């Protein structure tokens, strides 16, 4: 799972969000490192919807504007949990290796 995908699913884990809400949430979650552009965002949302990982919850429209709210599906939540666990194990392995590095007294 690519980082933008992971962050989008993470952003939707707590609550349904519309496009701009996802952009802002991903920016917060990544401490300002990942600013999704609309082309990337909607390409990812389309793909995730096709995979059944997210669903459209509702739409709001006013004066030609449209906000479509997306929510994490059950299978999306499961996929996110698996990815989070995988990343946690990777991070733990990296920390273990770093502690074994010669010359370091350990963190």
């Amino acid at each position, binding site marked *: 799972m690519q980082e933008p995908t992971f962050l989008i699913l993470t952003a939707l884990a707590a609550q349904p969000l*519309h*496009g*701009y809400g996802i*952009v802002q949430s991903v920016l917060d979650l990544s401490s300002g490192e990942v600013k999704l*552009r*609309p*082309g*990337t*965002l*909607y*390409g990812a949302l*389309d*793909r995730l919807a*096709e*995979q059944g990982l997210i669903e*459209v919850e*509702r*739409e*709001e*429209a*006013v*004066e*030609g*504007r*449209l*906000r*479509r709210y997306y929510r994490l599906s059950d299978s999306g939540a499961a996929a996110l949990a698996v990815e989070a666990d995988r990343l946690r194990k990777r991070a733990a392995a990296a920390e273990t290796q770093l502690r074994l590095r010669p010359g370091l007294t350990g963190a």
Partner: protein
Amino acid sequence: MTTSDWPQADPTLERAYKRLLRAYPSGYRRRHEREIVTTLLEMAEPGQQRPARADVWHLLASGVRQRFRLPAGRPLAWVFAVLALLIGGALGAAAGSWAATRTFAGVPDAAAGQALQRQIVGSPGIENHYHADSGSPWWDETAWHDTQVQGFGGWDPEQARQNLAADGWQLGEITHPPGKSATMDENGNTVELRTESNAFLAERDGVTLDIQGWTTEMYGSVTISMYPSGNAALLPLVVLGMLAGMAAGWLAAAALIQRARQGAPGRARLAVALGTLTVLALALPAVAFYGNVMRAFRYAGNDDPVFTVHSALRPGPYWPFGPEWLNLALAGAGLVLLVALVLTARVRPAPAAETQTVTS
């Protein structure tokens, strides 16, 4: 919720974003344009009147990428798209080949052939004939002119070369192809005859003449084969056509797949059936085109008629099976099926989800 937290933007900026979104497929725009524009306006800086340059390129690139994109988790869609790419490449190579031959010199007609015969043979001979050849599944039209002459004195190749050179023809080396002539004596025994052979090429104004004379003591013949020399446009146009055809094939497949998915299940099944039949019909002509692409490269620059790709549609013994018009018939049937497939997939999807209208 009120309209106060909705983005208010310069209409110029909104129009500019909508123009950029034309890079996306139409079906995708129908589903997402208003949503993406809303997000773009929410992300815009206050007072911004035109899209940032980086956003312009990003939206254009994203739109083009979306056009190439296939639905996730659909292996059959990938199979269909790859086949469409290959078939599109073959059709594109044929189109490039056809376009290149429009720049070739024409085959000398009967009058020009007659004039060349006089120049080369010097006399009408015993008899002479012009023949137009409609070509083969491997090359385009050619022509030849046959003259029957009397014995060794019936044709003087050196004089022919002098006449052609004086008229501006570039001449190749004269050669003497090996060959034998024979007759039967009164006892039924085969008697070999002394045979002279002379052959050379001449080229001028994009036309090649392949001149061959065979004479014995009693009779002889001079054959002038005439065909376009070709030019440097053929292979580049074949390659460009192939690449463009591949891209077009993939794009068409991606668009058709997306549209079929948006349509009713019955129509989607019909589209799959028509797509399968289209691929089946076009497969054999496509293989023939690719075979001719290989020949066009392999025999480029030799002294024979120019090998072209599109000539695979010309009736002839391309395959060791089936009728001579097999490629042409299959290509025609494939194109008819393709039109039916496009019409089937053109049905527009119904509006998707319910939309809640926000009041102010």
